[in-house]
């Protein structure tokens, strides 16, 4: 009856119609401009089809519809209000027409029905989901709100609380949860999905089930009387505002839209949604988060393509069973890759196993894992004091203490016990890979694999390509990181690689601020308000003052001009007093267990006494000044990394900081922030802080680039 590039409409028996969504040349179905135009044509056919008794909608892909084509967002959003409104109205009009068809409609949801895909299915009368399907409205994660009727139909179908939970969290909901929440009508095995949906459609067409009441409910105002509506929406807003934080306005905006539209029927309610969507879509947060979404996809694709040639990962090994080694062993075993964990001391092995066991127990306690699974995971870790079995491993991660000589000797030793094909990696946070490779028989089999602490929680792994690392070694390391469920950025070799190289200038800026009389607690508050998950003093406590002092020395040796200090930093003074940070309970702050046994940070007045020697008289600095003094050195160092080719693209650079350091996502990344700040103002700020030294300088080349007004990201949001 209709055949296009996305949709095919066919006749079934008893006057039923079947619309199959199968986007030509794509692995997934998504709603782009062309698809929307086709849907309108399909509806023309259906509206004119007087013999039609019911419509079944299904997907020919592994997933129903993954959502709107987010790749089109940047372009559309950049064209301003008019273009956005048109983008929304076209599809809203179509979804309304679908909902108003003179026949019952049933949609079969397999795989994913997200965003626009979820909204498409909400416009149908009955929703039948495959077991394993996931449904959700992730728009607020992108800094926008649902735009194709999600804020209108979901609360009218399933209630305000379900709608708030789904929309404000942006989470994918599993099919059985969607059923409990009243969003889908049945959950069936995937193999029976289309037949099941057809059975329900026949019941509807025969009048055995009613669809009109539900259709009316979706099109009517919400049933809440004022007294209920006020509490429902105000309490939700208060709760979600506290959860989302002030830097992420979309979740609360979505609730506000539902509230404003509550007393209106579908058509009027959609106007509220559209207006708010336009507002959010044009904001900086949406630009940042949509950009991040695209960069994240890019990053994933790149890592997968790098890894694709290499899949040999039957068994791995880790050297050193400390915090990092234990964490790596846990993560590998948890993700299904058996791992040998070698240490020189039985006590070390016990610590590593204890670490894994405690992480697993906590999963069991939270009901996320069965006892049987715990045993399976633990059995995948083989602790050993010798190199027995190393002949059969595909990849070895060296994770001994951060010391060049020690690492070199361990690497040389392990190389003698592994096969010629085994890839060796070093989990080092600062030491250049090429330096570690010296003395190896097979430096081509060697690269860096930098995990962040705690390994199981931090999403990023930096894979470092040394001067002599082969593509195959990098490929297998990337594959291993992906198998461990990590985000991967491949960077070129230098001291500190990418993440720590830009982090230490930031710490240096912190030390200078303290030297100049700033209050560390104020700096922390200021940077946390700016969006960092923790301020620099707190972060240094978490990293460990000993680790910080050591890494700084390494960095200073490599970049003496910028990172050598002519004063004693506050954290050095604390370190000399035996304060190591969170690990021994005291650093800038003290760490105590609260009543639930969770570590809690408490301010410590003595700290001020201890660091007084390194500071001038206390001064009260302006928040904005603190932020700039902290951020400028990080930005300058990042620009150097780009210039030196340490990282390939602005997008990867920004993603690495977001995943590795918790850089505030709503800012879209360090370089996207620089784009927003503007080249000229940035250079002006650098000039203002010239007296602070080389950390506040960029190269001539970069300066020219910025003066020319070159951006790191194009208007649409993609990295240049």
């Amino acid at each position, binding site marked *: 009856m209709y055949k296009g590039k996305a949709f095919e409409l066919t006749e079934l028996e008893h006057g039923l119609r079947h619309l199959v969504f199968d986007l030509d040349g794509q692995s997934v179905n998504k709603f782009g401009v062309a698809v929307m135009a086709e849907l309108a044509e399909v509806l023309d056919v259906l509206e004119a089809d007087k013999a039609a008794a019911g419509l079944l909608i299904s997907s020919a892909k592994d997933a129903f519809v993954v959502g709107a084509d987010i790749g089109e967002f940047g372009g559309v959003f950049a064209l301003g209000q008019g273009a956005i409104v048109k983008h929304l109205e076209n599809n809203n009009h179509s979804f309304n027409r679908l909902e108003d068809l003179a026949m019952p409609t049933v949609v079969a949801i397999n795989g994913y029905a997200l965003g626009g895909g979820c909204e498409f299915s909400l416009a149908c009368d009955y929703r*039948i989901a495959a077991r394993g399907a996931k449904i959700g409205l992730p728009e607020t994660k992108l800094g926008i709100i649902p735009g194709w009727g999600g804020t209108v139909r979901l609360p009218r179908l399933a209630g305000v609380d379900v709608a708030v939970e789904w929309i404000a969290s942006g989470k994918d909901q599993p099919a059985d949860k969607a059923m409990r929440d009243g969003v889908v*009508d049945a959950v069936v095995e995937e193999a029976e999905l289309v037949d*099941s949906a057809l*059975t*329900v459609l026949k*019941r509807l067409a025969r009048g*055995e*089930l009613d669809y009109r009441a539900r259709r009316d409910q979706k099109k009517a105002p919400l049933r809440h009387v004022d007294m209920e509506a006020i509490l429902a929406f105000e309490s939700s807003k208060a709760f979600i505002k506290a959860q989302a934080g002030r830097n992420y306005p979309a979740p609360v905006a979505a609730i506000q839209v539902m509230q404003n539209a509550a007393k209106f029927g579908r058509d009027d309610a959609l106007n509220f949604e559209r207006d708010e969507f336009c507002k959010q879509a044009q904001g900086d947060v949406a630009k940042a988060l949509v950009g991040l979404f695209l960069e994240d996809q890019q990053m994933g694709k790149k890592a997968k393509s790098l890894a694709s040639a290499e899949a040999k990962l039957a068994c791995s090994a880790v050297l050193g069973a400390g915090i990092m080694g234990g964490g790596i062993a846990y993560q590998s075993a948890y993700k299904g890759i058996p791992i040998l964990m070698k240490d020189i001391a039985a006590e070390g092995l016990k610590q590593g196993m204890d670490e894994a066991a405690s992480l697993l127990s906590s999963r069991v306690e939270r009901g996320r894992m069965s006892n049987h699974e715990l045993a399976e995971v633990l059995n995948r870790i083989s602790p050993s004091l010798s190199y027995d079995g190393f002949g059969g491993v595909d990849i070895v991660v060296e994770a001994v203490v951060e010391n060049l000589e020690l690492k070199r000797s361990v690497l040389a030793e392990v190389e003698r016990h592994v096969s010629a094909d085994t890839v060796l990696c070093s989990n080092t946070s600062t030491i250049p890979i090429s330096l570690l490779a010296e003395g190896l028989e097979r430096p081509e089999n060697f690269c860096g694999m930098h995990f962040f602490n705690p390994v199981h929680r931090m999403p990023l792994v930096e894979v470092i390509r040394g001067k002599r690392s082969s593509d195959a070694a990098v490929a297998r390391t990337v594959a291993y990181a992906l198998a461990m469920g990590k985000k991967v950025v491949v960077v070129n070799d230098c001291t500190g690689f990418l993440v720590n190289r830009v982090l230490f200038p930031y710490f240096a800026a912190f030390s200078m601020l303290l030297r100049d009389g700033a209050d560390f607690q104020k700096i922390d508050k200021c940077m946390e308000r700016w969006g960092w998950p923790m301020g620099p003093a707190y972060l240094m406590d978490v990293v460990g003052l000993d680790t910080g002092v050591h890494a700084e020395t390494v960095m200073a040796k490599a970049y003496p001009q910028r990172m050598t200090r002519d004063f004693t930093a506050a954290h050095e003074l604390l370190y000399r007093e035996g304060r190591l940070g969170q690990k021994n309970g005291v650093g800038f702050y003290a760490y105590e267990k609260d009543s639930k046994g969770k570590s809690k940070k408490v301010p410590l007045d003595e700290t001020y006494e201890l660091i007084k020697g390194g500071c001038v008289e206390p001064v009260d600095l302006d928040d904005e000044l603190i932020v700039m003094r902290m951020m400028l050195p990080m930005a300058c160092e990042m620009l150097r990394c780009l210039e030196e080719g340490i990282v390939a693209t602005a997008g990867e650079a920004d993603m690495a900081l977001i995943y590795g350091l918790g850089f505030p996502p709503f800012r879209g990344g360090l370089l996207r922030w620089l784009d927003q700040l503007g080249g000229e103002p940035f250079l002006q700020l650098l000039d203002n802080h010239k007296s602070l030294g080389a950390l506040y300088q960029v190269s001539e080349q970069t300066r020219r680039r910025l003066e020319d007004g070159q951006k790191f990201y194009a208007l649409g949001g993609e990295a240049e």
Partner: protein
Amino acid sequence: MTIRDNDALIVDFARTPMGRSKNGSFRFTRAEELSASLVDQLLKRNEALDPAELDDVIWGCVMQRGEQGFNVARNMLLRTQSIPHSVPAQTVNRLCGSSMAAMHTAAASIIAGLGQAYLVGGVEHMGHLPMDEGIDVNPALGLSVAKAAGSMGITAEYLALLHGINREQMDEFSLRSHKLAAAARDTGGFSREIISINAHDKNGLPYQMQHDETIRDDTTLEALSQLKPVFNPRGGTVTAGSSSQITDGASAMLLCSGAYAKARGLTALARIKAMKVVGVDPSIMGYGPVPACQQLLQDQGLSMADIGAVELNEAFAAQALPVLKDLELLDSIDDKVNLRGGAIALGHAFGCSGARISGTLLNIMRDQQHELGLATMCIGLGQGIATLIEQV
């Protein structure tokens, strides 16, 4: 018959089809939703009664936790489309007699002139709220009563033993329940009382459920005789086949005063003429209907011969038969007792059952033109409850 202003009148009754608790049609339907859709449809067919004028909604429910916790009556009310927030609601628990107790409270309030219109009924989703979970029996009960009294099946075994009821009699009684229920279904005996409900079929797909799915048309005496005793595996006689079924269901009844019916032009079906609730020893809880009915009849100056139809909740055949024996109903069983089957065929969704058997009794009385009917049930831990209904 003249209707007095403060007579407690039954205006209408309806129930859901009974769903099997194990993989039955209501496995995806919550107890409040089941109740609310029943209530909406009952109120819809009684438009002369304005839901805003209900003085109270009283719902019987035993397992008051999970979806049935936190006053399921109020939760149910809030899910109806028809009852405004201004109407109150309470949940009552007299175990198996809960919704009959709800009827009694409403009727007593009407008789006392405290209110004019009530919605009563009850629900039990035994599939979602298993009856043996969340219970903490006081060990000190052992100072005076048998712990086994808390196990209804054991009390049934005990009662059968005391009254010399054997396995064959129980199986015959059970077969009768299924046959009568199947016949009632096939001849439209339930058409007035069952309201169809959105449910899920065996494949998990939405459908309109119109009939009880608990009735086993094909059961035989032989099949029943093959079942193993469940409560006392060695030497016991009570089987799953001769026990009330574990079921999900809801029932609802509209009651009002004579004055209200007149003012609103409501046609009443019957009058609640008398009510009685008594206690017995917990170990013979199944015997509760005997003193309840005897005392009720005595108070009214009636004898069983005056009663046209009796609904006795079939907790167990082993319990029903001793009760029928001592109420001198065994000889007239086929004329009077459970003429459309009982809980052995239809299930005993605790909170639902009291209003259900009263409503079914009412429909039998209407169809067979009986003036008086008696509904009675045994209650765990030793109680009996009875209601005398009079057609108007």
